């Protein structure tokens, strides 16, 4: 059982000028979670759901410092007075980012890690790993190099590690953020198995559709407080309008309408001819003999993990020398060097493409035209940033901005580069409803500017917000490509949700 009594928490952070800043985490939390209950925490960004998770697994107050009042009890232990080492025997945690939560390089070692730390008998652990691998159907993931796994597989390994230890409580903080629909389905099945085992489960999430049938209770957070509580009956009666109003993502994907109307024929195309490329390890490759994508709209590139979407994007961008084939665009035939001058990519990890010490500099860095002088560059930078509501940050260091603001900075740099093709790699990972819509509107603005926009994404709701065309990739080849409207939306649905009610193995 988990009990919160009059809990308040404020994070203490130090700002750039050395002064302290207290940010409210949660306020007035009085909550009791029964054994075996499945609770979903949701709400917009910064609403307090992550803070609540941290209060359960002990990261607050043992790792994140701040002002904590009230009492948190987990399985009879006072969290404040119990070291995390002891708490972790009873509380397992799964985090948002698959890339940064594993300690070992080998998957089997990682699965054994939590149990090893609890000083379980090694032979016993090895047996447990065997049984867990069978139970969760992850035998193929044993004894592998974690760096070779996809994000979804990494998350599954993290879950397996918890299953080996088998604590009575499991907390998850936005576990589906970086996962595609297949992986989310697998995750959902694991959660169901845990629920059937009687574990108490608390999940903080934006993407709710896979939890709808599992949740016993859903708590809606706003500004650190629990605004509303829904029981399982109320959850099932929430409509799309309700969730829109509450600011959370849809509970049922099938209800989401298509915003795109049927279009007149497209005018201009981007054409790939004899596009062939393969990495040295021969693992990922693309073979596209002839593909035309409309160039005056937004195209979504979808595909399962390892299908070749990123490979394709990198090659379109001109990042690979050894790519054979040409791209025809606006009347020009382009090899990889020309494509480098025409494409700008907004990467999945925006931190990798911000290099300067101010947002203004960052935008001006992209202006590689040597005929413009410094003053002109600055004027244009201001103009671009104004359009994206970033002008107040002109002198701010990009790393001091929030994730969304950094992404907009990268977009601004893209516009400043005057490159006509913009490619986005998973721009809405981990975003709540409001921010996802914000990104969608920025993309539509880019379309108005006349840019060709390609987006690698698996965010169904996002695709329906702003994409006109869909390109489906499988095994490095084009499986299908179609304009998106009321008629073709079924094709998209079939890809995203192949089995409406999934049964069988994970």
């Amino acid at each position, binding site marked *: 059982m988990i009990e919160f009594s009059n809990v308040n928490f404020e994070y203490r952070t130090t*700002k*750039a000028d050395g002064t302290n800043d207290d940010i409210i985490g949660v306020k007035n939390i009085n909550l009791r979670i029964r054994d075996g209950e499945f609770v979903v925490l949701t709400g917009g960004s910064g609403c307090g759901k992550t803070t609540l998770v941290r209060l359960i697994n002990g990261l607050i107050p043992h*790792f994140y410092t701040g002002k904590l009042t009230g009492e948190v009890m987990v399985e009879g232990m006072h969290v404040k007075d119990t070291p995390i080492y002891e708490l972790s025997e009873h509380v397992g945690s799964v985090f948002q980012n698959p890339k940064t939560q594993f300690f070992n390089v080998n998957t089997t070692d990682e699965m054994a890690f939590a149990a090893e730390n609890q000083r379980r008998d090694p032979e016993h652990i090895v047996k447990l790993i065997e049984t867990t691998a069978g139970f969760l159907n992850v035998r193929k993931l044993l004894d592998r190099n974690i760096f070779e796994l996809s994000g979804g597989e990494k998350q599954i390994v993290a879950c397996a590690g918890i299953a080996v230890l088998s604590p009575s409580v499991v907390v998850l903080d936005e576990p589906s953020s970086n996962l595609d629909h297949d992986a989310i389905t697998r995750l959902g099945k694991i959660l169901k198995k845990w629920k059937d085992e009687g574990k108490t489960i608390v999940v903080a999430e934006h993407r709710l559709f896979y939890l709808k049938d599992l949740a016993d209770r859903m708590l809606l957070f706003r500004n650190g407080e629990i605004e509303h509580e829904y029981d399982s009956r109320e959850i099932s009666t929430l409509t799309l309008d309700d969730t829109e109003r509450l600011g959370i993502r849809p509970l049922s994907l099938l209800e989401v309408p298509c915003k795109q109307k049927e279009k007149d024929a497209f005018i201009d195309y981007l054409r790939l001819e004899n596009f062939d490329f393969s990495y040295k390890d021969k693992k990922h490759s693309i073979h596209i003999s002839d593909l035309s994508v409309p160039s005056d709209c937004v195209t979504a590139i979808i595909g399962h993990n390892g299908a070749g979407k990123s490979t394709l994007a990198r090659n379109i961008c001109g990042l690979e020398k050894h790519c054979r084939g040409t791209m025809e665009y606006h009347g020009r035939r382009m090899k990889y060097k020309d494509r480098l001058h025409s494409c700008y990519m907004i990467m999945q990890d925006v931190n990798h493409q911000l290099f300067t*010490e101010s947002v203004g500099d960052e935008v001006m860095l992209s202006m590689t035209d040597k005929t413009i002088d410094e003053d002109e560059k600055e004027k244009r930078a201001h103009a671009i940033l104004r359009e994206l509501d970033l002008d107040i940050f002109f002198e701010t260091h990009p*790393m*001091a901005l929030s994730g969304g603001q950094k992404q907009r900075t990268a977009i601004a740099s893209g516009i400043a580069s005057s490159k006509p093709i913009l490619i986005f790699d998973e721009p809405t990972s981990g975003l709540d409803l409001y921010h996802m819509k914000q990104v969608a509107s920025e993309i539509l603005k880019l379309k108005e500017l006349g840019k060709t926009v390609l987006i690698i994404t698996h965010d169904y709701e996002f695709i329906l917000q702003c994409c006109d065309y869909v390109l489906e990739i499988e095994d490095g080849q084009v499986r299908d490509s179609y304009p998106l409207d009321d008629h073709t939306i079924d094709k998209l649905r079939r890809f995203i949700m192949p089995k409406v009610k999934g049964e069988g193995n994970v």
Partner: protein
Amino acid sequence: MEKGFEIKDLITVGVFTALYFAVTFIVACLGFIPIFMAVMPLIGPIFAGIPLMLYFTKIKHFGMVLITSVIIAVLMFIMGHPYPIFIFCIGAGLITELVLRAGKYESIKHCIVGSVTFSLWLLGMVIAFFFGFREAYFASLADGYGQEYVEQMMSYTPAWMFYAMILMCLVGGGIGGLLGAKVLKKHFRKAGMV
């Protein structure tokens, strides 16, 4: 030595040691080109000093730099460098610890000095090299030219070259420290990460 180490400290040691080592190693690989090999003790610390400075700002108590130096010694050893590396690494590590402690873990200036003293570990790499080829060269010379000539050469070469190496390490460490401080101010302080 207080052992008030928390997991956060140990993980910080781990990641920054990895980064520092990676930068040093990459620069050292460039040093395989004979011309660069001689100035490696200068160039290595210049570049490696930058992440080193960031590391120092994360250090708030005794012992972390020492662990880094031990780890580097072990790594170098399994890569084939003979045992003097341990002496130099741990020595450089200890001196740097004392420097940082003197600055109460809050002074950038002390961090820069720390960068100077820490780079002395490179001498451990260089010194074995030194003794090694010296022996080989003179041993064969003795066969050809006679013992007297050899003794003359032996007394002549080592001293100045060795001092030159020490100087290169110190200067390189100093430049690296200053560069690191500049980068910290330009980026990290501005972004509020220091």
